């Protein structure tokens, strides 16, 4: 009896898998049919994604890439702001078709999601620490409370490798507030968030990023649902084209992202050697098509 039930379940699962396989590439069809692609973008402040207070538009690296992706696909864009803890659900449940959400590649994610293999960035974690703390390397965080945002991939190495007591807050801004409230000795976030913040914001003059190397550096890719081969191929072609035309390097410069990422130069050289077809997105000075 139990055996039969087990087999029935297996059959049902196989059917389900087959049904999914048959519709695996329906997303690309759907995107073209609607003339619109929904892209989840992470907007957590700073040059990688923020809201322009004057126009209420989403601006920065993630939104620009999302708009350029839509341009490359020849459709309008629907920018959907997502949060770290729930972005994967937005993708799986179909609320968005693609994720450009500072979501780095790791084996666990690669198992459940699809992605365009050519990276568009590489990010590691940096720690904002009070200047008088006497912390100089990751090992110094052992046994000390460290703030991160919920969903951060740095939580794992911080706990397991460096023995820190990780506290996850709803968002990176809560985590940074908690650092200033004395709840932790360091706040660890993407280096792309920490470095510009400490450099430009006078409120953070009492803090620094004294640890030279970043934690868990990993490449950022565009994520899709699992097995959507056509969508992945179409997106990857666009990302490769950005490298070939140098558009990513230009965008990095235009947005004032520094230090410049050597990976982008390397990929440009590779693109030239292998003859990827160039893609350049139109300048973002024009009002974006359908963002909000």
């Amino acid at each position, binding site marked *: 009896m139990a055996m039969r039930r087990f087999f029935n379940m297996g059959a049902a699962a196989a059917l389900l898998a087959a049904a999914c396989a048959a519709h695996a590439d329906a997303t690309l069809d759907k995107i073209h049919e609607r003339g619109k692609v929904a892209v989840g973008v992470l907007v957590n402040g700073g040059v990688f994604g923020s809201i322009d207070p004057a126009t209420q538009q989403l601006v920065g690296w993630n939104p620009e890439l999302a708009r350029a992706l839509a341009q490359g696909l020849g459709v309008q864009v629907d920018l959907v702001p997502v949060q770290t803890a*729930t972005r*994967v659900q937005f993708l799986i449940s179909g609320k968005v078709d693609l994720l450009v959400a500072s979501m780095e590649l790791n084996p666990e994610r690669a198992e459940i*999601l699809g992605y365009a293999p050519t990276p568009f960035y590489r990010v590691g974690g940096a720690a904002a620490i009070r200047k008088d703390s006497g912390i100089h390397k990751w090992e110094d965080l052992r046994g000390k409370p460290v703030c991160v945002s*919920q*969903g951060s991939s740095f939580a794992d190495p911080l706990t397991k490798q460096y023995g820190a007591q990780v506290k*996850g807050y709803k968002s990176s801004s809560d985590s940074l507030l908690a650092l*200033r*409230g004395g709840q932790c000795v360091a706040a660890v976030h993407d280096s792309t968030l920490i470095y510009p913040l400490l450099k430009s914001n006078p409120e953070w003059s009492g803090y620094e990023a004294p640890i030279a190397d970043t934690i868990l550096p990993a490449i950022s890719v565009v994520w899709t649902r699992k097995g959507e081969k056509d969508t992945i191929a179409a997106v990857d072609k666009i990302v490769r084209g950005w490298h070939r035309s140098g558009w990513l390097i230009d965008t990095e410069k235009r947005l004032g992202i520094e230090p410049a990422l050597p990976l982008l130069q390397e990929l440009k050289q590779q693109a030239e050697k292998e003859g990827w077809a160039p893609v350049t997105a139109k300048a973002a000075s024009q009002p974006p098509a359908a963002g909000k």
Partner: protein
Amino acid sequence: MIDTVLQAWVSFCKPLGLNYGFVLDASERASFVHGLWVTLELCAWTMPVSLLFGVLIAAGLSNGPAWVRGPLRGFVELTRNTPTLVQLYCAFLVLNMLITQHLGTANPLTPFIWVVLVVGLHKAVFHAEALRAGIEAVPPVMLESARSLAFTRGQTLLRVQLPLAVRFALPALVNNLVDLVKMTAIASAIAVGDVTYESIMIWSHRDNVLELLLLILIYFGLLTWLVSVLGRWLEQRLRMPGYGQ
């Protein structure tokens, strides 16, 4: 033994599309179990705190002098009409930061204590309103009899009004306590390691949201069911034959 059971469970759920692999990882399992425990601790603290303050506020509102009633009414309205999450953020991220800036590391208020205070006081207000309804439902003749027996105001409250008021208010109070149990989940917003927080930390790493949400639902369902069973038992026990029913 436990390992075999867990292993069997994981392989049973796998073909259903549910990946409970995290229970086989010792550290993730430990943090999840810790989360279950912290949620219990939160309930164990917030319930008495909310009831205590609920009785105090209700007593102040119905029997206190005007200079007590005024501010209390203001507190009730403010607390009742703003979201608990916002109150928690204000208390922890703003108030606590100011306290820390003055006291430095000597600040004794941990995130756990802030959750107990904010959630406890928030629910206390609702208890107070439920109790006030009960207090006002006590027939005036009873108070008259109490006065004629030379009870003081305090004695009347403690020995006549409150015992009756609690009976009238009990269904509403139990309702509030059920809500209180669910409300402890906001502790996750400020990194107090309750079951919701630990689950978020696990699923943000493994992306097994559905699996963990099912566990959270079952767990909170169990806790709230226990509270309502307790409530029904109390109602039975405190029932006065011929009164109300």
